[in-house]
């Protein structure tokens, strides 16, 4: 963390940007610590093998869908259904990808593959802010990479700790550390709440998420997100003056 102070990186050098990305992701990494640990403990108590638990964090790298998968494994669900549910739960990431298209346009296929793999809620939120700042800095992909590498390392480390702890203390999954996810996400939503259309969008998404909670396979999440986006766009039209739009 403090490396960019101990070494004198040229400002905006690639290494400097890498550590800037990691630094700006730090609060989200802190939020992901209990989340990752609880995932490891839940997986251990749900009967998932250590191999499959670590494999999920290493190759899937998508927190909420990993939680859903563990609960489905516990309920004895067949693997094709778990994969399908993962698809639905993670469908929102397609919209993250769409948002990144203009920023990744000039990158090599290798960079696109690496950065797309790490497009989690957290890294997306942090990186999109950096890309959107029009300060003429080049090589923002290193900022994105720094955020992603920090999240990835932490997520796998915490999964491993949780897995070990879950085997040692089987009761740990009932401590309620699962509040870490909503706490982190609330902190991430608040900075967005500066315009009326954004407020309307968020209130709508929250309301629909409750009304549609009974829908199977987490489809309520998609319904709520789509409703939120539509209401946001409609409100943009209604409050159509410049200061309402950012």
């Amino acid at each position, binding site marked *: 963390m403090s490396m960019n102070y101990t070494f004198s990186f040229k400002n905006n050098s690639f290494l400097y940007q890498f550590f800037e990305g990691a630094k700006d992701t730090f609060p989200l990494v802190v939020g992901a610590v209990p989340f990752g640990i609880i995932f490891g403990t839940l997986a251990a108590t749900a009967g998932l093998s250590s191999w499959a638990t670590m494999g999920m964090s290493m190759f899937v*790298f998508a927190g909420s869908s990993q939680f859903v998968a563990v609960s489905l494994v516990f309920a004895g669900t067949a693997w094709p259904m778990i994969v399908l549910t993962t698809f639905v739960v993670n469908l929102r990431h397609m919209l993250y990808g769409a948002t990144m298209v203009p920023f990744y346009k000039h990158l090599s296929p290798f960079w696109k593959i690496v950065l797309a793999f790490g497009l989690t809620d957290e890294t997306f939120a942090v990186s999109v802010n950096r890309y959107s700042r029009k300060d003429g800095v080049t090589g923002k992909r290193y900022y994105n990479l720094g955020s992603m590498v920090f999240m990835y390392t932490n997520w796998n480390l915490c999964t491993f700790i949780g897995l070990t702890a879950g085997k040692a203390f089987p009761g740990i999954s009932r401590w309620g550390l699962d509040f870490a996810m909503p706490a982190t996400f609330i*902190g991430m*939503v608040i900075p967005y709440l500066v315009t009326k259309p954004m407020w309307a969008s*968020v209130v709508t998404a929250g309301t629909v998420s409750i009304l549609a909670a009974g829908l199977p396979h987490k489809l309520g999440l998609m319904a709520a997100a789509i409703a939120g986006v539509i209401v946001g766009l409609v409100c943009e039209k209604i409050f159509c003056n410049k200061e309402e739009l950012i």
Partner: protein
Amino acid sequence: MFDMGISLNEFYMVTGMAVVTFGIRYIMFPISGRFKFPELFNRGLKYVPPAVLTAIIVPSVLMPHGNTLNLKLTNPYLVGAIAACVIGGLFKNLLLTIVVSMIIFLVCQWAFAFGAV
């Protein structure tokens, strides 16, 4: 079904989840050059992160144990979430919001569970 150390079903599950998740995150890059997104779609994108995150937050806070609403102030998830909103709104500091609301949540959960309040 998942009782073996490394079962074939687990392998299929993890592989399937990995392929599907990467596919979702990547698909927009190869196809984006082939057509242009309508202007409305692009404007709608900025509502995606807050709307999706809120749709994850609200049920996990108001329905912490399945499909029943718990709007009582003895719901530690609700108290913690209110604390997170207040702290986040006042100080605009992510780390402070997460740490303090986690502490409040854990204290409430402990207090409510043992009937101290």
